[in-house]
């Protein structure tokens, strides 16, 4: 049995009231959120492209929704004129020289128009005004850059993969270096030997310089030495041989340098052969001994009257050259 007609009417009335209440509630909610009842002003902005911006999309200022996109229309050549409705209450905070750009409220979110910038003190946004647009960082650009980065990254990782594979297997110079520890001991032995060799070489050259200094000392050589041609000739021969010995020593040092550059050369092998090293030391010792004897010989020669003149002549020539150099230096100083 149905309720009486009056009860039915009451129920229907209640139900209809409920429905109307829901409708009113929904309308108010929508109105509140869409700011339908707030006063708005209209501004336009011209973009080269709008990235799929649509009518009804939001307008943000400092991250706050301040209006909506009212319409889109082609403008001039291929530009798009976007009409924006901005709340009057928000517009007072937006400067007239603010810029507009197309943004997005998320990576795959809706497109939005972002108003930003503007200089303090310039007048507020006015109704009917034009907002200058800025080139937007479009998703396409972002994606293009991202793609390029990807390609680079891919090349780098490919190389790295090959390199690490080769290192692990011990291929290539670095690989060998990392995997072969005999080389390290060889090199350190070579360097030690070389150190000893150079000490000997230094000792020899210091002896030589002592000898040459004694040569320069005046009054040591007999005056008639120059007249004695045989002695002089033999002396010249001795000096030439000495020069040759120096050159040999230089070659030896160069060879040693080469030996350190490559572990595979015969010199290198010779260097880190203990027997060869000992031999070389002996040679150097002999060489040193030889030079010491030579020093004694030269000492004797200085005291020989035969050679005194020749040495004196050389000292005079030296002194004359020195004086000439001093005169030239003084002239140069006067000219200044």
């Amino acid at each position, binding site marked *: 049995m149905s309720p009486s*007609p009056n009860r039915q009417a009451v*129920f229907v009335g209640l*139900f209809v009231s409920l429905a109307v209440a829901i409708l009113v509630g929904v309308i108010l909610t929508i109105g509140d*959120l869409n700011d339908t009842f707030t006063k708005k002003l209209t501004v336009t902005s011209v973009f080269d492209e709008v990235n799929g911006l649509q009518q009804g999309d939001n307008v943000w200022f400092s991250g706050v929704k301040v209006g909506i996109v009212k319409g889109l229309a082609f403008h001039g050549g291929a530009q798009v004129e976007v009409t924006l409705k901005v709340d009057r209450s928000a517009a007072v905070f937006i400067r007239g020289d603010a810029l507009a750009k197309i943004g997005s409220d998320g990576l795959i979110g809706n497109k939005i128009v972002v108003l930003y910038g503007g200089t303090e003190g310039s007048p507020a946004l006015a109704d009917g005004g034009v907002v200058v647009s800025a080139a937007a960082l479009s998703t396409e650009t972002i994606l293009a850059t991202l793609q390029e980065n990807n390609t680079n990254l891919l090349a780098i990782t490919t190389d790295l993969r090959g390199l690490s594979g080769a290192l692990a297997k011990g291929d290539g110079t670095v690989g060998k270096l990392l995997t072969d520890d005999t080389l390290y001991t060889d090199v350190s032995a070579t360097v030690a030997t070389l150190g000893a060799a150079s000490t000997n070489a230094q000792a020899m050259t210091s002896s030589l310089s002592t000898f040459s200094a004694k040569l320069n000392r005046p009054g040591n050589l007999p005056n008639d030495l120059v007249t004695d041609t045989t002695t002089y000739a033999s002396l010249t021969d001795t000096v030439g041989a000495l020069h040759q010995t120096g050159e040999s020593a230089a070659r030896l040092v160069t060879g040693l340098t080469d030996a350190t550059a490559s572990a595979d050369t015969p010199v290198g092998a010779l260097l880190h052969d203990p027997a060869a090293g000992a031999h070389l030391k002996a040679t150097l010792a002999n060489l040193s001994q030889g030079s010491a004897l030579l020093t004694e010989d030269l000492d004797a020669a200085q005291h020989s009257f035969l050679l005194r003149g020749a040495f004196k002549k050389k000292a005079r020539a030296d002194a004359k050259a020195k004086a000439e150099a001093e005169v030239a230096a003084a002239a140069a100083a006067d000219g200044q």
Partner: protein
Amino acid sequence: MIHPAVDGFALGVYRGARFFQRFVTEVFLPPYHFRELVAQCYEVGVRSLPLVTVTGFITGIVFTKQSRPSLAAFGATSWLPSLITIALVGSLAPLITALICAGKLGSNIGAELGSMKVTEQIEAMEVSGINPFKYLVVTRTLATTLMVPALMLYCILVGLLGSYLNVHGNEATSVAAFLKGGFSNIHFLDIFSSVVKCFVFGFTIGMIACYKGFNASSGTMGVGRAANASVVLSMFVIFIEEVLIVQIITWIRGF
């Protein structure tokens, strides 16, 4: 005579159009049966509330539950209220309400008027000098036309409630945030188009069920056929109308 089927179809369309025309003329002419209209509104609206409540509520929950994983993949579960509200207001609520009503009211009205027709109650009314079209068809069609939009609004409320419970349970969203998120992408046109849609759906259900019942062939079979045909035909027509109205609304949105 082209083909019996084509003939029958054409005749059906003609009779349907005449029925519609009769409704349009009689709805404005007195006498008006307000009491019967209220009684039918009670039958159609209030008595359908439990069904719409359960269906709307479950739809809200289920739709939210099923949408969550795909949105969660983007970390965008905060869009759930918006998604659900758009779906509910835009098409779920009108369609669910219309289909439920087509099933419940279509069979109710079709069977009631069909059995009245078969047992000569409609003729009895006619020979008492009462216009059965006005008393039966106009009141029922008006009742469905008025009540289906109301039921749809109620369905939105219940559906949102179901959705809110689910969203609140998972994301602890507040009512205010839920509504703000939900209605931020809804415009007046959306809600008005849904209401208008439901007026059309309600009218369709009432008109088709009354036509089928009013023209039921004699016998118990005729009553069953009338009830069945009103449900099937009204559901079919509702879907076609949905497509057309969406087209029209999209066109209006362009302005």
